[in-house]
């Protein structure tokens, strides 16, 4: 069972490697909005959702594809924690 910090670390690694092209100098805080910072576009949302589904073995329903669930490291970690119980 992953705890919230493990989830955040895993997400940060994925987002840095996938969307920041490995540039760890570009800072990403846990509360930064992906949409407002422009880190993730419409293709990126599909990549993020696909990664979470494969990594944590659950399906994200369309009505769960909201900023409240997916738009920051904090939101994602809380969403994943709720889903995997």
């Amino acid at each position, binding site marked *: 069972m992953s705890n919230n910090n493990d989830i955040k670390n895993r997400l940060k690694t994925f987002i840095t490697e996938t969307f920041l092209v490995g540039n760890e100098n570009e800072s990403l805080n846990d509360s930064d909005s992906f*949409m407002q910072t*422009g880190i993730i*576009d*419409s*293709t990126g*949302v*599909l*990549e993020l*959702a*696909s990664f979470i589904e494969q990594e944590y073995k659950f399906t994200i329903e*369309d009505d769960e*594809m*909201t*900023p*409240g669930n*997916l738009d920051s490291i904090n939101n994602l970690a809380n969403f994943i924690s709720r889903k995997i119980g």
Partner: protein
Amino acid sequence: MTQGLTSQKGAIFLNFSKDSLKIDAARVSEELITEIRNQVRGTLKKSGAVVGISGGLDSSVVLALCARALGPERVVGVMMPERDSSPDSRTLAQNLADKFGVETVVEDITAGLEGTGCYRRRDEAIRQVFAEYDPITYKNKITIPTNILEKETFNFFNLTIENSKGETKTRRMPPSAYLKIVAASNFKQRLRMTTLYYQAEKRNYAVAGTGNKDEHCQGFFVKYGDGGADLKPIAHLFKVQVYQLAEYLGVPDEIIGRIPTTDTYSAGSTQEEFFFGLDFYRMDMLWHAMENNVPADEAARVLNLTTQQVERGFVNIQRKIDATEYLRMAPLEIEHQ
């Protein structure tokens, strides 16, 4: 273009109203006609123009403007149907060209697209999502959420297939399938572009692009596909303004009344469900308000929306503009010191 308004960032916006995007269609048409003539004959040094016509609103307006600017005998309307095109498109486009006295050429690009593997590659990607997909018995389309004012949502892409009974299945796409479907489908716009340049170059004509502001600035075009043209005479006009020009120029009613589609996906994906996620009037008005610093609560009052809905609209439009900036960029070069 819009009377009584200032478009400078930071300026106080005085009079945003339901009519803010109304134009004097006669005056705007005359300005565009003069500009097209100057660009084609003066700047580009070409003898005429070719226009890809699909039976849609934008290409109809550009054809009508070019015919008025250059003379109908110096304009060619090129119809480029392919396997997935609506059968109505060709009839509507021919009627349009007849009305404006413009010569037409029909270039069926289906065989060319088969040569590029467009259909095969696209169908392989669709079967990644729906294993049962067969292009003979199913139609397909890509859609995004269209409730963007009601709920904060990401612009993610769903794939829908429809069988001969009209039964549909929709599923969010994995990124690899989405990217491959779009990449394969983009052969259509890019082959149309090369076909237009063939028709133009053999006559020493220019290629007139047909994209409007909604498409150009939000990135609803294919780079080096329908985005590839010598002049883009309506790229600064909102769709709701193009409608006004169409009526003034006498574009046939059956074209003006037609729901805008991508004419790319066999199940007839509308532009609203494929890309914009919002009807043209509200999108254009929200965008116009955003560009002119109209406060969200004032825009909400005029458009009969809530402030929150307006703010969601602003965010959605700005996000698309930002995300598609690279489509409007010229190739990047290394600057030597």
